């Protein structure tokens, strides 16, 4: 039986060898193989290098945005304030920042209350449509300087009542307000060193104010205050829209203030 099996295999093997005989001349040689191999290797390396460059570019853009974000926002806010200040000379009034923010707050977009003025796009403060995409918490965090370089006072003639740099910090401290629409503010020209953020949050208003060193403010009901790293004061408070209702985010104000103080 075993012999029969081996004989079978030998006959089949002979058939296979015969079937594979009579090969035509080969269609390739070693030179072609090596050339193809090197071409593929070069292509792969180029693809890898391209992918690495793309990753580096993305990372670089992220780093630049992270490093440049706060200063850009500050500069833009200051520019806005300077423009407002210039506008005041022409009789337009000194409260440019508040004026720019007020229409947006009065008309939040129809997409569910997404912020009209993203902290990452200061120009959106003058965008009448206000239909900016809701900013992700990540870039907001990237726009905030690390602890050790506090934001410090504003530089405009009048305070920015919806300060983009402070808004970025607030978004980082309270992720639940990311995308919250700006609330209307008064036209009062507060001292330029101040920064403010006033937001419409669920059922009320959240107010965060930074006061430069030496500035004093009257205590507000339910608001928390703390000294900041730059020697100023941060005031964090919230109030309900309707009297008798609980103030929104009341239990989040203290940790938010603890986060903001070393950054301001």
């Amino acid at each position: 039986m075993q012999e029969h099996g081996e004989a079978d295999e030998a006959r089949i093997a002979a058939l296979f060898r015969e079937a594979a005989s009579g090969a035509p001349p080969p269609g390739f040689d070693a030179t072609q193989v090596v050339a193809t191999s090197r071409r593929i290797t070069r292509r792969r390396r180029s693809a890898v290098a391209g992918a690495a460059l793309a990753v580096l570019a993305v990372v670089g853009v992220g780093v630049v945005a992270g490093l440049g974000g706060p200063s850009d926002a500050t500069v833009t806010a200051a520019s806005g304030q300077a423009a407002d200040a210039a506008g005041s000379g022409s009789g337009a009034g000194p409260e440019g920042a508040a004026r720019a923010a007020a229409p947006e707050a009065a008309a939040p977009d129809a997409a569910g209350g997404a912020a009209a003025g993203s902290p990452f796009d200061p120009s959106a403060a003058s965008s009448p449509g206000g239909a900016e995409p809701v900013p992700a918490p990540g870039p907001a965090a990237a726009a905030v300087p690390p602890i050790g370089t506090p934001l410090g006072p504003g530089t405009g003639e009048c305070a920015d009542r919806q300060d983009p740099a402070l808004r970025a910090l607030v978004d980082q401290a309270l992720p639940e307000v990311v995308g919250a629409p700006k609330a209307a503010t008064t036209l009062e020209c507060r001292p330029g060193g101040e920064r403010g953020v006033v937001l419409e949050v669920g059922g009320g208003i959240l107010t965060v104010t930074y006061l430069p060193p030496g500035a004093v403010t009257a205590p507000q009901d339910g608001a928390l205050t703390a000294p900041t790293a730059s020697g100023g004061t941060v005031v964090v408070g919230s109030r309900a829209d309707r009297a008798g209702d609980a103030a929104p985010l009341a239990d989040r104000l203290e940790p938010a203030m603890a986060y903001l103080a070393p950054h301001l």
Partner: protein
Amino acid sequence: MSQGSRNRAGGSVRPGVVADAEQEFDAYFRARRDAVRRTAFLLCGDWHRADDHAQAAFVALHRHWRRIRDRAALDAWMRRTLVRTVVDESRRPWRRERATDTSPEGVVEGPADGPADAIATRHVLVDGLRAVPPRQRAVLVLRFLEGLDVAATAEVLGCSPGTVKSQTAHGLAALRAALGDALDDLRPAG
């Protein structure tokens, strides 16, 4: 920039080592090309595609040449690469194989035991192999053309020896069923 300097710049391989590796590859290529082509031919049933598959396998081997430390395993590596290439291609929709009643290369008529007989045998067997599922075909080719035993075939295909045995039996049955009485030598010995 020469290959050697490019590698030197990369800091990975010295020029002399590169030259040695190229010579080794060239020697292996010259020694094994025809055998690899034959195996590819029985796996796919067409010399043009066999050349494509064999070339692809050699290109892959060249790209991995310096990383294959066990030179004794080169043949197994090539067989594995070749079988995978052919089986994978046979599964692609535009290349999915279909059994046909006629040979694409035509039927050769001629006297028995002459050159025409050998050609007829080749056509008949290749046609029959086309009717065998690719994995079973690979087992048959490795065992009967390459002369591998069950264990070596299992290693190349990455399966168990038991699978090789069963695939051999199924493959031979399929081949015999496809050929009918066309080849006496494929009939089981009494």
